């Protein structure tokens, strides 16, 4: 060991003859990661003595994929720029999609409105007319999906259908039907459905859920069907981004990510229809890039190592694709700040860099104006350009896993992994993901996390520039605000009235009857869902059928 290194192992206050520029007793308590893990002032080889290069790191493109899933990483293919868009009526979102495509975006991502996320039609009495088209785009039938992708070449890009669990089968079926009409065969249709069990049961609350034990059946039906019919489609993207946005730590994010993947896998294996290697390769994930720059990079690396371990050891996966974690990353909306909103541009850029240094395959740079409104056109442009600057100017894409081997990063990667396995074990001891959802345990955990997070900001322990430090009386930046089309509800309602008159209602009734039978018999619902949407059955009609069979589940949220 070089002379002097050993001294760094001694706590700073006990060192003799070394100059320090701080008062350790005063500041030490603040030196924690974003997940509250205490950190030393410097890391050395001693902190990673137990790490085996071969077993724990490997090379990029080789197991356990800690350093990335491709040997040459971004030299082979830059990450996909995939912003998340949707508002107003489908025709308006279609214009936004076309703009994004022309700006060089290589993947689309559909943000549905809250009405659609609930599995309701735009004219449903459970929704207010003003709920339609405000937080995303309404899609009630195949007609809306057709309008959404009018003139867009689906063979040239991939799409994320960010559908909630109860809507995942019908909305994906609508997308597939549009692709087929455009001449893109199912064998080539490329993209992802979000389809994460936790999305509407805890991350984002809807009132139209069925009980989680039945909901997971629908989720896994889509996985199972796509594994056999659409080889390029990822029918689930475990969205730990959304878990994290509720205030939990980086390692809790990873623990729940695996707990959920285990839940899906067990549900499929219980059916004895497919072997692990026949469906594990279609899984994908969607992680958050939060504000602690190095902790997030460590998290992406830990995620890949854990995924590999889980799939090869527990499920005995042999196909490398089963154990290779493909990452879609989104920069954290909850780290963005309402006050002095232009500062968010910088936050997003740091988080983008963390995602890239962490080896993401696809990236959504959240728009700087999201604390105020849905993204404006300028906000989207800036997000796309932020990513292109990272791709073409920073040169960080030249070398795979450029930070691999850093003492601190490798120590933190292992530390997060250890804590994540512990958290996963807590969930498994309580019966796994469905059990902790149904019992309300997970909701209580998240409430605790929310409160702790906020308390730290309230006390000033977590600093947020512009909110609890460097505040200004008058906001120095004037930024435009996006206003969705106030007529969206009325327009969509009129379209639905017309649809219900024009479609072949006997055909719709027959398709829905078939879907009901398949559902009750416990067969895979996806083929029957495809037939129903092609007959122009609506999203609400399909989801109501499932709600009738399984009843509506009330979220276990209280004080």
């Amino acid at each position, binding site marked *: 060991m070089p002379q002097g290194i050993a001294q760094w192992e001694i706590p700073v206050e006990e060192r003799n003859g070394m100059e320090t520029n701080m008062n350790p007793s005063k500041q030490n308590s603040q030196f924690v990661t974003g997940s509250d893990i205490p950190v030393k002032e410097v890391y050395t080889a001693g902190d990673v003595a137990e790490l085996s290069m071969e077993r724990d790191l490997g090379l990029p493109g080789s197991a356990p994929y800690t350093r990335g899933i491709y040997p040459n990483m971004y030299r082979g293919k830059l990450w996909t720029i995939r912003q998340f868009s949707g508002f107003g009526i489908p025709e308006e979102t279609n214009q936004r999609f076309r703009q994004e495509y022309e700006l060089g975006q290589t993947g689309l991502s559909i943000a549905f409105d*809250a*009405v659609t*996320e*609930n599995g*309701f039609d735009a004219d449903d009495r459970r*929704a*207010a007319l*003003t*709920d339609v088209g*405000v*937080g995303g785009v309404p899609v009630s039938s195949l007609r809306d999906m057709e309008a959404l992708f009018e003139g867009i070449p689906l063979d040239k890009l991939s799409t994320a259908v960010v559908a909630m669990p109860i809507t995942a089968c019908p909305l994906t079926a609508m997308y597939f039907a549009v692709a087929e009409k455009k001449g893109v065969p199912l064998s080539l249709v490329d993209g992802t459905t979000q389809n994460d069990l936790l999305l*509407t049961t805890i991350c*984002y*609350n*809807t*009132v139209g859920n069925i009980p989680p034990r039945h909901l997971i059946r629908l989720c896994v039906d889509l996985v199972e069907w796509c594994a056999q019919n659409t080889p390029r489609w990822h029918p689930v993207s475990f969205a730990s981004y959304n878990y994290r*946005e*509720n*205030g939990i730590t980086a390692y809790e994010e990873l623990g729940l990510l695996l707990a959920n993947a285990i839940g899906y896998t067990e549900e499929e294996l219980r059916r004895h229809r497919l072997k692990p290697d026949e469906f594990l390769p279609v899984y994908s994930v969607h992680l958050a890039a939060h504000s602690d720059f190095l902790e997030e990079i460590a998290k992406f690396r830990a995620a890949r190592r854990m995924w590999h371990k889980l799939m090869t050891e527990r499920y005995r996966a042999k196909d490398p694709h089963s154990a290779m974690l493909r990452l879609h990353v989104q920069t954290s909306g*909850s780290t963005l*700040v*309402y*006050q002095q909103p232009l500062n968010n541009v910088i936050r997003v850029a740091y988080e983008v860099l963390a995602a890239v240094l962490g080896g993401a395959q696809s990236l959504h740079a959240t728009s700087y104006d*999201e*604390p*105020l*409104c*849905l993204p404006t056109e300028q906000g989207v442009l800036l997000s796309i350009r932020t990513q292109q600057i990272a791709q073409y100017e920073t040169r960080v894409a030249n070398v795979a896993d450029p930070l691999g081997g850093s003492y601190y990063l490798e120590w933190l990667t292992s530390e997060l992994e250890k804590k994540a396995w512990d958290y996963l074990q807590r969930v498994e001891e309580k019966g796994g993901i469905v059990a902790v959802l149904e019992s309300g345990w997970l909701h209580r955990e998240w*409430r605790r996390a*929310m*409160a702790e997070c*906020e308390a730290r900001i*309230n006390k000033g322990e977590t600093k*947020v520039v*512009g*909110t*609890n430090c460097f505040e200004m009386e008058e*906001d120095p930046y004037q930024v435009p*605000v*996006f*206003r*969705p089309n*106030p007529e969206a509800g009325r327009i969509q309602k009129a379209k639905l009235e017309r649809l219900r008159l024009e479609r072949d209602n006997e055909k719709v009734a027959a398709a829905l009857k078939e879907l009901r039978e398949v559902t009750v018999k416990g067969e895979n619902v996806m083929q029957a869902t495809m037939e129903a949407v092609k007959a122009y059955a609506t999203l609400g009609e399909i989801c109501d059928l499932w709600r009738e069979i399984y009843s509506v589940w009330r*979220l276990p*949220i*209280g*004080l």
Partner: protein
Amino acid sequence: MPAEQRLRVLMAKPGLDGHWRGAMVVSMALRDAGMEVIYTGNQTPEEIAVTAIEEDVDVVGLNILAANHMQLLPEVVHRLREKGARNVLVVAGGTIPQQDIARLKEAGIDRVFRPGTKLDVIVDYIRQAGQQGETERREGPK
């Protein structure tokens, strides 16, 4: 504060916007400050007004992170007033642009707390303004 004078607060989300972190964090802070908080989550404006009256609350806290705050927030106030609930304090929070706040005040939203507002500020304000309203409701306006 004696139990019979504890402020009663209804925390609700008008419409279908499903973000619950903000409303829950504020609910917990108000509860920890000694208030009785009823968290109902998503409800229609009509349901919120009915709940507020049935539960005899002093304060209604509303939260929206979708862009329909200009429609749904005034509608809650309207439904409350229509049913004769005059002195119930209505406050709101969420992703509400600065330029909308004046119009919401005109529509009867007593105070809009912007994202990033310290919890202490919200608690102190509700304690003070809610208490005033509670007294007026019991004794009639001065």
